[in-house]
């Protein structure tokens, strides 16, 4: 089986081709630097069967401008190609991907790769854009100029794929010395001139003045890159995105809530004894606690997906480079930080695209403060508790405030770190602004769906284990044979209550009891599990009439033994503040360690952010309580 690496400049269409070749659904976006790690996949079965069972491995690599790596993501590509002893999949050939509209630059990389000793096939992408402009592309002439096979590829329809596989099927020559050619600036200059001439000759423009994609980009940039209007539009778009997560999802969330209440009630009534009780009020309620937030997660990913696909995000990076520089970051940090609103793990990996070590470390440290999708269920539940269903716009506004609160905390942390961490004074920007493209809604929709599914299945096993542990903990030990005990008495002497009483002093200053404390501890497995843990602990423990009601109702009725309410405005705000600041996700700590190459920053962040979150939450809860809230 041969192994082929897809190599090309950022945003040239490598991942789109990778998806066509392997059938994968790797994320494709319209900004440079989206791929920061290599992906490997076998040639799709249908393609393999179509070409006499031809087998090949395809490796997608982060974009590079040359074989002189300057950032961590570029080093990934460099090692994939040239660290042949240590790389798991020795490369047999390189598929160089070049944007047809940028041939005057991208041909240089093709030539450099040819010099490295690898067999090379050049794939010219964005053919749909060239055709739209009426440009004529002379493949044969380019083939002659480069002396390598050339394939035209259309990423929308997949045209050119068969031709490419036929070329990959040709017997490969044995590899001699594989080495990255080192070019000085003079050589680079010569190669650029050669590429410009070659590009001018192979691409005949029908009408030099006419270019609708460029014209559209120029028009849109007059608005989106306006020094003042551009900033206003950015803030409005972000507020709209964060607020819509709440109010757009609300009707669907209500429907899901109703459905789970009915199912939970039916199961509890139809299946007798403890097992029915476990299934209905335990497991189903816990799963419902998470599923209800899927519409919000979906809307979040859909919103980010649309922004990514249009080409707008790279512009925002440039637009807010100066304000970010004042905080020790730069425009290149914007996309990774924004990705943190979906999930911190890929976002921290996306910082590989940042050239400056100092900026990269600061960006990695502040990403966990961004409101990731796992915080959404907690925010949704608490905001719902505060406002009910009556005022979705006010609730949406509070959601936006929480998002901006996370940004503010991240900003302060960034400023402090920029004063402590040594390194370059000014970060690199040098950011390509891609042409605007119309989003392909089907793909964005599928990607958002896939993310929401991943979110559900990530939490699923943890919820199941929690449900089992908690059900056992609250129902055992059973009373001796012949002894009658009320559910309240049973709960009082249960294992869970015994452990709860031991840990309660830690959570008392937050104004909550051991049950909420249990939820806060469970959230270290995954933040969203907090909601399921509350659903489990309040439903299993509650009286029968409470069991079939929603979690928010159970929260409203939950009291301390002296009859005072557990969930008040003060305690709910305290919980929100804790979740806004605390680093609870253990997977994020693992990624921080991997990307920084040391446990020190990861563990420091874990300890400091949790202490700070706890301390601030305690102060706020007690201040609000003193106002009678």
């Amino acid at each position: 089986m041969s192994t082929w690496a897809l190599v090309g400049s950022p945003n040239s269409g490598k991942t789109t081709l990778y998806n066509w070749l392997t059938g994968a659904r790797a994320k494709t976006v319209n900004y440079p630097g989206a791929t920061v790690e290599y992906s490997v996949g076998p040639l799709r079965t249908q393609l393999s069967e179509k070409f006499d069972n031809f087998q090949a491995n395809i490796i997608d690599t982060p974009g590079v401008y040359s074989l002189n790596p300057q950032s961590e993501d570029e080093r990934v590509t460099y090692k994939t190609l040239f660290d042949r002893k240590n790389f798991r999949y020795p490369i047999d050939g390189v598929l160089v991907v070049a944007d047809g509209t940028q041939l005057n630059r991208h041909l240089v990389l093709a030539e450099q790769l040819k010099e490295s000793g690898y067999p090379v096939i050049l794939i010219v992408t964005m053919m749909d854009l060239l055709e739209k402009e009426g440009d004529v592309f002379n493949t044969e002439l380019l083939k002659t100029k480069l002396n390598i096979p050339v394939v035209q590829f259309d990423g929308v329809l997949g045209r050119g794929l068969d031709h490419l596989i036929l070329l990959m099927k040709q017997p490969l020559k044995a590899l001699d010395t594989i080495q990255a050619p080192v070019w000085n600036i003079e050589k680079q200059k010569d190669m650029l001139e050669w590429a410009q001439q070659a590009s001018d000759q192979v691409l005949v423009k029908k009408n030099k003045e006419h270019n609708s994609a460029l014209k559209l980009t120029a028009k849109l940039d007059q608005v989106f890159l306006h020094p003042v209007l551009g900033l206003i539009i950015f803030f409005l778009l972000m507020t709209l995105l964060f607020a819509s997560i709440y109010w757009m999802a609300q009707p669907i969330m209500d429907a899901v809530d109703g459905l789970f209440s009915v199912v939970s009630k039916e199961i509890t009534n139809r299946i007798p004894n403890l097992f029915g009780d476990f299934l209905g009020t335990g497991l189903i309620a816990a799963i419902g606690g998470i599923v209800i937030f899927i519409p919000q997660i979906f809307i979040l990913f859909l919103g980010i997906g649309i922004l990514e696909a249009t080409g707008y995000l790279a512009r925002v990076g440039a637009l807010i480079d100066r304000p970010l520089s004042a905080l020790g970051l730069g425009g290149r940090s914007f996309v990774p930080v924004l990705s943190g609103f979906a999930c911190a793990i890929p976002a921290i990996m996306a910082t590989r695209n940042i050239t400056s070590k100092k900026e990269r470390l600061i960006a990695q440290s502040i990403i966990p403060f961004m409101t990731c999708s796992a915080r959404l269920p907690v925010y949704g539940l608490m905001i719902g508790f505060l406002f009910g269903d009556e005022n979705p716009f006010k609730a949406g506004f509070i959601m936006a405030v929480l998002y901006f609160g996370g940004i503010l905390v991240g900003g302060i942390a960034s400023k402090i770190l920029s004063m402590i961490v040594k390194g370059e004074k000014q970060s690199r920007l040098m950011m390509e602004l891609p042409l605007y493209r119309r989003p392909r809604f089907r793909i964005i929709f599928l990607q958002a769906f896939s993310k929401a599914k991943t979110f559900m299945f990530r939490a699923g096993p943890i919820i199941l284990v929690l449900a089992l542990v908690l059900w056992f903990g609250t129902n055992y030990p059973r009373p001796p044979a012949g002894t009658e005990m009320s559910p309240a008495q049973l709960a009082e002497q249960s294992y869970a209550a015994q452990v709860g009483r031991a840990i309660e002093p830690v959570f008392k200053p937050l104004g909550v009891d051991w049950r909420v404390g249990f939820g806060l501890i469970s959230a270290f497995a995954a933040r969203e599990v907090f909601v399921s843990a509350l659903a489990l602990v309040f439903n299993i423990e509650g009286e029968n009439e409470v069991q079939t009601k929603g979690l928010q109702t159970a929260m409203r009725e939950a009291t301390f033994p002296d009859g005072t309410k557990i969930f008040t405005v003060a305690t709910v705000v305290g919980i929100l503040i804790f979740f806004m600041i605390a680093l609870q996700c253990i997977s994020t700590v693992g990624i921080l360690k991997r990307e920084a190459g040391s446990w020190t920053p990861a563990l420091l962040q874990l300890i400091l952010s949790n202490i700070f979150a706890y301390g601030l939450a305690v102060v706020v809860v007690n201040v609000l309580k003193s106002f009678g809230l």
Partner: protein
Amino acid sequence: MIIDKIESLTNEPSAQEMVQRLYELGLRPGIQVKIITRISFGTVTVIEYGHTRLALNEQEMACLHGH
């Protein structure tokens, strides 16, 4: 603006890498670039050459010398 030379004001390795990257992005002496706008409180310049739009900060823009 037509670029006359691309040169950094300092000889630091990071500055040399910056110049190298400007070349890799397709900028070279003789090429015509159009200044589109200055954003981010005047510190970022957006230039256009061919089909490429590039945002450069002050330090990067200072490497482009032209008339």
